[in-house]
């Protein structure tokens, strides 16, 4: 319940700050040169790289990943079955935990409304809404009502920032690409099948808009030396749409139905 409470507090804060974003945008001297990522975005339900060839836009981000980065094939709707880790070289301790993982824990009344963390949540099959200012960029996820604040005017992660499912994000522009560096994440889901990241994980995301503004390509670059060697990445492709994200308003009674199901 603690994590859900944090998300609610963050959401209320984002709503309260919304008018300030407009002011921040007006105050920006060089903002007009940056792409506007604001709006409603829905992840593509079809196959994503490496399950298909990347588009030129996606390729432009993939080429910026460090050599040897493992592209995970579970973006969007696909999920890895038990025991598959997408080609990652998983360290023994994390591997043991994943092997002992009981998937029933995902669906109990106690846990069913615990958000899985921002790394897994960003690639899920739910829309996001972006509010872009020059000092802050706010990302409101429909999934679990998560809200991310990207501080565009900060350059470091405070050591005393509390660990949370959304962590602490700082961003900057590299040409037309938004780069978001996230740390201070609490241990949470990396893959769907029991492989979790630790609090030492670092997430580096790149967001790049297509020329016509209709598509937003994203790469998640993930590093956690306590879980796997090298780097992993996911490629996301989001299509611009109309409207707003809906409230998620998770109801834990879902877990009752699953827990009380009958055997054959």
């Amino acid at each position, binding site marked *: 319940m*603690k994590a859900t409470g944090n998300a609610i507090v963050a959401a209320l804060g984002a709503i309260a700050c919304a008018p300030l974003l407009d002011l921040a945008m007006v105050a920006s001297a060089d903002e007009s040169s940056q792409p506007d990522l604001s709006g409603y975005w829905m992840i593509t339900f079809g196959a994503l790289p490496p399950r298909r060839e990347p588009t030129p836009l996606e390729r432009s981000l993939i080429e910026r990943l460090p050599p040897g980065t493992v592209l995970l094939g579970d973006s969007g709707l696909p999920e890895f*079955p038990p025991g598959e880790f997408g080609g990652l070289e998983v360290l023994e301790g994390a591997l043991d935990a994943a092997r002992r993982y009981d998937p029933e*824990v*995902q669906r109990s009344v106690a846990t*069913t409304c615990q958000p899985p963390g921002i790394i897994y949540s960003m690639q899920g099959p739910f829309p996001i809404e972006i509010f872009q200012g020059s000092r802050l960029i706010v990302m409101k996820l429909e999934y679990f009502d998560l809200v991310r604040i990207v501080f565009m005017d900060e350059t470091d992660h405070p050591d005393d920032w509390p660990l949370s499912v959304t962590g602490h994000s700082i961003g900057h522009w590299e040409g037309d690409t938004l780069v978001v560096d996230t740390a201070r994440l609490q241990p949470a889901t990396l893959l769907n099948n029991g492989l979790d990241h630790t609090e030492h994980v670092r997430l580096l995301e790149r967001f790049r808009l297509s020329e016509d503004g209709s598509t937003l390509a994203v790469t998640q670059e993930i590093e956690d030396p306590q879980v796997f060697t090298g780097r992993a990445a996911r490629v996301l492709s989001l299509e611009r749409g109309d409207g707003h994200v809906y*409230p998620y308003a998770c*109801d834990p009674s879902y877990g009752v*139905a699953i827990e009380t*199901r009958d055997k054959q």
Partner: protein
Amino acid sequence: MPRRFRCWVLTMALLIGVATPGAAHHSGALFYDPDGGISITGTVTKFSFRNPHAIIELAVDNADGEQARWIAETSAPSALRRRGWSQESLAIGEEVTLEGIRARDGSLLMRVTRVTRADGTEVGVPRGIDN
């Protein structure tokens, strides 16, 4: 250690313990057999249209004349709304046919991909590029 401080430490440990492990992502791949296609027809006894996933409970007649209670899991209602569903989409007592895949553990649990009413009409619209 002072008693009040011990109590605080224990409380924080419990809070962290609750918040950290066992996050929910409601994986389909772990629970359902992608090759376990199934179609069942029965009477709706309960319909919960709430996130994380809507639940349909169905009474299904067995070959031996008894009724089995099936739990059918759909997509998230926030996604279903974009495909024409609402909490009024199914009525208690209505006969429907559910198509989907069944649970790996052999329990009376399935993941729904299509719901068809007795008159042959489908509930909602198929998933598209933007829903």
